[in-house]
């Protein structure tokens, strides 16, 4: 189901995406194309719009303007059945894991299989345990999410995300809040999933080490705009000031002059010019 104006390799296409929260413009004409088998990392400072972009790609929010196509289908124009089939080709690993707290780890992983396949319970159990083995959580299927550590929750969420063998996999801050060793394990898992299962992935992160390790291409967002898209080398060699600030972890704020600072503190209706 690819449209004429797409090369077959493009699996995610975002065109001129604009969105607002109330009066505030969060995304301002973002474009992005992700090819089959590619790991695309979306980076940017806090409030740059990277998570918002992800939620729009997943269809959780309606944009003000723009188009999003996943696997050649415009997500805002397809009917319920096609949308359902599309969702079975998508896996998402949320920042918090978003595991269902009332279910065991095994039940969480098995849920998509139970809902959307006619497999018998025995097969569902075997497949979900296989996926838990893939993320190094073999034997943990009977635990409740509350009994898992942060890294284990992320891995269990990843097992649930890949249980239907999706073509597209999305991650929101996969290594946030994890120690460097566990974060590196998650990065290795992402690479191994791409290499073994050929999935295309979009990873939202602000962890530079992680981004440079896993990315085929990086898109840097700033104030809701696509600042630059390129390979790891192209990003590292960029002479764009905002990109350099991000890579060198420099504060984005210019030094305030004292009178401006005083105005900010004292004027009731002060707004940034």
């Amino acid at each position: 189901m690819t449209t004429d104006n797409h090369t077959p390799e493009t699996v995610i296409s975002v065109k001129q995406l604009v969105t607002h929260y109330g009066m505030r413009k969060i995304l301002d004409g973002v474009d992005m194309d992700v090819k089959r088998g590619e790991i695309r990392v979306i980076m940017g400072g806090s409030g740059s719009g990277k998570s918002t972009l992800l939620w729009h790609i997943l269809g959780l929010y309606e944009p003000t303007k723009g188009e999003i196509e996943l696997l050649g289908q415009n997500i805002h124009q397809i009917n319920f059945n096609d949308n359902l089939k599309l969702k079975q080709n998508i896996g998402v690993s949320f920042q918090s894991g978003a595991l269902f707290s009332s279910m065991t780890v095994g039940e969480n992983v098995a849920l998509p299989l139970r809902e959307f396949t006619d497999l018998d319970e025995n097969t569902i159990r075997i497949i979900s345990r296989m996926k838990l083995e893939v993320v190094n959580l073999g034997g943990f299927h009977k635990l409740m999410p509350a009994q898992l550590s942060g890294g284990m929750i992320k891995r269990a969420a990843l097992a649930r995300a890949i249980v239907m063998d999706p073509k597209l996999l999305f991650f929101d801050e996969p290594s946030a809040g994890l120690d460097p060793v566990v974060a590196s394990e998650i990065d290795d898992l992402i690479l191994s999933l791409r290499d073994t299962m050929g999935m295309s992935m979009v990873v939202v992160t602000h962890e530079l080490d992680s981004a440079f390790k896993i990315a085929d291409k990086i898109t840097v967002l700033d104030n809701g705009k696509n600042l630059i898209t390129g390979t790891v080398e192209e990003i590292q060699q960029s002479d764009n000031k905002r990109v350099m600030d991000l890579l060198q972890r420099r504060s984005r704020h210019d030094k305030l002059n004292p009178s401006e600072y005083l105005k900010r503190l004292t004027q009731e209706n002060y707004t940034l010019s």
Partner: protein
Amino acid sequence: MWSYQAIERVGFAIRLFWDSFYWLIIGRRYQQKIRLRQVVEQVRVNGFDALPIVMTLAFVVGMMLSIQLLYALSDFGAESQVLLAIAKSVTREFSPLITGVIVAGRSGAAIAARIGSQVVSQEVDALKVIGIVPVRYLVLPPLLGLMISMPLLVVSADVMAIFGGAIFSVSKLDMSISAYMVESFNVLIVGDVMQGLIKSVVFGVIIVLVGATTGFHVTGGAEGVGKATTSAVVISISFIVLADMIASYFLTQ
């Protein structure tokens, strides 16, 4: 602003009700089937588990009615009418109302807290991206569960309230408890019991819709969940009392 929000919430609740039955009827066609196991679990949690407290309070209310009515009717030498008064008032009014208030406190709060915490922890978003319609998965099972369990709870409350009335009244009426119970059931007509049962189903629907609506609108993390829980109980009870008055008017015409 407040009234706009209230209207928006009422509209949201009506939409939830509509969507629930839409998915109940056509869900199987779109891989959104309702699982019997989930509904049975909701009947257990919201109905069976509430049985001890509903029956206990119904018993106490029956006894209290007996005390008050015997005192009031003695002025007219009409103590013998206490049996009729208790049987009718309990089945038509008190049992569904007490059951509604108790279930609103238990299940309404639980539904709001559960959905609210699932919104906060992105579990609802996870359902959406998996392809599961949240209304079908989170609202329909408790809705069906309460529509089944509320009438059962009310019938239990009817029996216990009449029994409570019997315990206090029999000595004054010079009757045995079994004779009092049999006579109470004899004076009741089908319409009396039906009125209570119809109300109980309406109250069950109100409890689930209010709980789910407040739960889906939670913002602000754990504090928001706490506020939603309190709101769900207060709003449910208010709507139950209002619906009771409206239903009483139409069902007694």
